[in-house]
């Protein structure tokens, strides 16, 4: 599942723009991961600071 490292996240919305599923939403300074997330990892790659990580179970 997608993990948001909130101490790193700059809540810029870069990840939101590349999410095909529309699963991410930025609510002011809080990045919300919705149920539509498929763990594709595109957002984690695009993040300018490395705040997103797909954790494999």
């Amino acid at each position: 599942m997608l993990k948001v490292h909130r101490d790193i996240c700059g809540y810029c919305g870069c990840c939101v723009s590349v999410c095909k599923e529309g699963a991410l939403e930025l609510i002011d300074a809080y990045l919300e991961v919705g149920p539509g997330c498929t763990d594709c990892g595109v957002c984690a790659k695009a993040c300018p600071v490395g705040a997103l990580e797909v954790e494999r179970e």
Partner: protein
Amino acid sequence: MKKHYNLLMIGGGPAGAIAARTAAKAGLSACIVEKRPAIGAPVRCAEGIGMESLAEFVKPDPCFISAEMQRAALVAPDGTTMILDSQSSGGKVGYVLDRKVFDRELVWQAAEAGSDVAVKTRASAPIIKDGKVRGATLEFCGTKTDVTADVVIAADGVESKFSKWCGIDTTVPLREIMSSAQYIVTDIDIDPHCTVFCLGNEVAPQGYLWVFPKGDRTANVGIGISGLKSGTGHRAKDYLDRYMASKFPNGKTIEWIVGGVSVCRPLACTVGDGLIIAGDAARVVDPLTGGGIYNAMYTGDLAAKVAIDAIEKGDTSKNALMPYDMQWRQSKMGKTIERNYHIKEYMINLTDAKMNAIIQTASSINLKEFSTLQLVKELIKRDPKLIFELAILKDLIT
């Protein structure tokens, strides 16, 4: 806040503010909805804009201009620097803005013209009836309110969620998102009137690194790299930190900024029934420069004008709003986006050696005008071998 507006703007950036100002000045009811608690903050921008571009929509005012630019420097991977000077506009070519103040000024102008403004208010869903956008559900401190509108203008920036909820795919391809980071750095030695653009696959893969002065010893130092080139250990922030350590080791960072900039083609269609998409949300950022302030103001203004006309005629269907889509595509802005998209696609495939060769050739050119178009034309003139490679560009600029 009213229950119904002629125009409802989702987003309080330049696109939403100018749309609201244009609508309110024409006597229509308008409301800007901004999800952040403050207009203009946090900044997601390198803040550069051309002098004439700015003046088209707002009177330049020192209160929101951080610095005036007179020239630009293009730095090749090997360090070769080419200076682009302006000899035709009294030495001034552009500005580096203070977006926090600038965005507030635009919203203030909209408010003064009669528009309502709601901050810390988030559009959480569109109101759709019979397949037509009729407004939005707004959330403020846990309270939901439905507000209807004749036309909704989606000006919600790079995230572009509102249009997505309306069924329009606004996803930016990974390779065409500029994953970006920027510091406002102070106490550094810079040319305070020169914007610097550094190119190279080691410096900023498929993007560029910039130094945009904001004062005598202060600048926006930032970088955008392709999302495709971003990853653990080689993200925008990593490249920027490396540059800072080598160029400005003693600079003091007074602001930490991150963001995403789309450099894809604009959306295939920027209108829907009762809906117009403007600014970054419509993906109308200049794909070569990443500049989006003017394009946001231009599309915001045009969106309001077309909406006003449609409302007067009592038809706000997709067909009735289509003139917006057609007009911006045929405009100078639309044509520049298309041309610069091709130039960008050419540039991102260049090797460092090729970039060095081009900039070495170009640095011997004394450009009278500060423009990409002139530069490419001159390049073709100087380096006959380039003609083959720039053939695709030649067709676009002649």
